[in-house]
């Protein structure tokens, strides 16, 4: 079946099997390999992307469910001139990544968390709870949480 998705701002159409998961649509049909797969039980969050601006685990969504919608992956986050998104910058400044495998999913989950916070001032506890579904084996989460809290204070992301 044909599935059309606006992927990182560009509309694309691919012919995939109905059972194709969004993560395979992104990785294989569209060839964007930044989004990773870390498990087969919806537990790790390595595959997290934004679907219409909100984070989803792309291994639990069928590509067909994204028909006509917008998907943003790690590749679509920086500006066209390469300027990194405040969350990406905060990850580098706070050493929020080591092997980098969880990173695309973590970053997307945090981008979504920051977008959804409204007027709420995020606490460390909020961030930790919010990231419960995103596993990292390298960083012990400490610097990821720091990065998220730093990004939350970034002026560009203030509403």
């Amino acid at each position, binding site marked *: 079946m044909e599935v059309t998705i606006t992927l990182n701002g560009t509309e694309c159409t691919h012919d995939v099997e109905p059972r194709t998961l969004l993560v395979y649509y992104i990785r294989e049909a569209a060839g964007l390999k930044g989004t990773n797969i870390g498990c087969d*039980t919806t537990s790790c969050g390595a595959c997290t992307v934004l679907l219409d601006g909100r984070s989803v685990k792309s291994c639990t969504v069928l590509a067909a469910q994204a028909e006509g919608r917008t998907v943003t992956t*790690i590749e679509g986050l920086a500006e066209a001139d390469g300027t990194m998104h405040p969350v*990406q910058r905060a990850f*580098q400044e706070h*050493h929020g990544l080591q*092997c980098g*495998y969880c990173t695309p999913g973590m970053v997307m989950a945090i981008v979504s968390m920051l977008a959804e916070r409204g007027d709420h001032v995020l606490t460390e506890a909020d961030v930790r709870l919010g990231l419960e579904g995103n596993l990292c084996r390298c960083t012990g989460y400490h610097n*990821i949480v720091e990065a998220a809290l730093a990004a939350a204070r970034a002026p560009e992301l203030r509403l």
Partner: protein
Amino acid sequence: MSILGNRVLRREDPKLLTTGGTYVGDLDLPSALSLTFVRATIAHGRILGVDSKDAKRAPGVVGVFTCDDMGLAPMPPSMAFLNQAMARPLLASGVVRYVGEAVVAVVAESAAAATDAAELVVIDYEPLAVVVDPLEALKDETLLFPEVGTNNCFELQFGHDDRFFEGCDVVVRQRIINQRVAPCPLETRAAAALLEGDGRLLFYSSTQSAHGVRDTLASSLDLAKESIHVITPDVGGGFGAKATVYPEDVVTAWCARRLGRPIVWSETRSESMLGLGHGRAQVQDVEIGGTRDGRILAYRIDVVQDAGAYPAIGAMLPFMTRTMATGVYDIARAEFNSTSVVTNTVPTVAYRGAGRPEAAAAIERAMDCYAAEIAMDPGELRRKNLIAADVFPYTTPTGTEYDSGNYVPALDLALEMAGYPKLRADQQARRRAGGSRQLGIGLSSYVEITNGVPEGEYGAVEILPNGKAIVRTGTSPHGQGHHTSWAMLVADQLGIAMEDIEVIHGDTDLVPRGVGTFGSRSLQIGGAAVNQAAIEVVDKARALAADLLEADVADIVLDKPGATFHVAGTPSISRGWAELAQASLERAGEPLMAEVDLPTAGATFPFGTHVAVVEVDTETGQVRLVSHVAVDDAGRILNPLLAEGQVHGGIAQGAAQALVEEFSYDAAGNPLTGNFADYSIISAAELPSFDAAFTETPTPRNALGAKGIGESGTIGSTPAVQNAVVDALSHLGVRHVDMATTPERVWLAIQAARADAGNGTKSRKGAA
């Protein structure tokens, strides 16, 4: 001013953050076939038949292979002292010995086709008796290798004196289970293989040692090393478990040669939980004896190590446990005995610490049992027995020579950072109030060994005619940030800007030799080799500059901020790196380059003290880690940002073992925790932020003064957290809770202590 010691941001990050890394599964290999495996579904059984007719006919299938089809010799245990008769076939041959063992290889045009076809393979088994518990395996009643006649694959004996505890006022004994855990790098195992135009094998591997993979493939496939080219693209974590070459790697390479097409193998998480080796898995009996006033006189530890179905690195972990048995304490007498046994479980391998966390956990638990017995504060007991700073190098009773150490300041700093007296006061207040939420404070003073199986490392620095530098290293980073750290070292020696220094690793064609990244060895030996190469390239450049400037070489100085050489006193006439690199090519016909095979002057011994605070709900058994202070001493710190990152990650994995993670089996050898839904891998929500600091006691064993930092966090944190859990319950009479300290275990320990108190007996009291 030197860049060393600064919080330099990682140059690896922009790519990882904007496009993601390039891991094996991300490679674009046109016309590649997918390889998958049919795995054993029973823990022990004779293979009566394999029916792959339907699989072979399935759409897209290109090949279905069994061990017999491959005709390759089994892989013997990698270390000669392990029982060599227990060799591991590349695919199960005749018998399967654990659930998850690969039996049949299926190759198809796509991953989905391979998976579908694998389900059509029917394997007929005759079940055999299963042994899961290493203590049962010790009895040799159920044998994994009947022809060998025993399950024992490795044994260490170091004393057994009946009068060992003579002169001790107090002797405390404890059985401790250091449970089996799964390493869980977030990227599972993966490999890709193809034949290059010249017939050489190109092999992409998610590994901690590119050269190790090359050498093992060469011996397993009976090929010359030169005919194999191994590349490690980005690697999504390893933690020791990817320092091993697995049978699936060899099968991947074999299929590429057999079928003449690129092969990709990338396992699922559920496969990985049974395919990647496990860690820890020791049963320990510790006995500690000393005086009533807290002076340790004798320490004994007996270990049964679960090696899993085929002896691998896990089988030799007791060797490292013995090496570090007495920890940071000045103990006159020590005994250590161990037996490693095979069981019908996933083979055990190295996992972050590999034998040393087990040593630290044993003695740190023993210390707290002893402290409880003589009613002494655990901090005071530790301080009283720490090896004094003025006796290094210090040789332990098990024969290990510690290079350098200054243990008391690390203990003092950790207690100060934790606010220890206030914590104890809070604990007393809670106990008096009698609520269900009790506070526990756990200490762990540890010392560990890095580059523990001491080996040298390769490093090279080459200056290009444009004045930029290329660094080649034999280390194999997979998250540690060597591209940043090695560039810092070279920038500091050469004066060339970091952005003009490229680091190359993990390609056996571009880096001629290498050992890899494991055992926290990289900086102290790999970094030191790169540093030495940089020093030597400066010497070569100085000689060239002397020639060009017609001066005596002794008068030539390197102006690092300007990255130029000149005669002392006349900075206006100088030669830069580009000119010198060109001069080298023109005059000597060779690049300006220095290559170093740095031999090791021996292992180094990082140390520190961790203090964990937990809150335990005595009604439900629920444990929450409230805070964790880590004071680590890894000698001189090159980049505190990266060193802290290593400590944080280590603490999380160590706390995970103490609190939640445990790989378990039922009695029939069925894994109960074979995926991420069932295995309680620790998340951000279960952890606090950490409070990490360093003291710096340089080692004399390398020019950087650096010790390893990769595993300290794990080694220090595990016993601190476990001790905190027991400490929270000590007023109820609880003296020990095994890891993982799950609500059930904690609750049962409380019930048992209450029952003992009711009977008027004291719980698990050691005899004097």
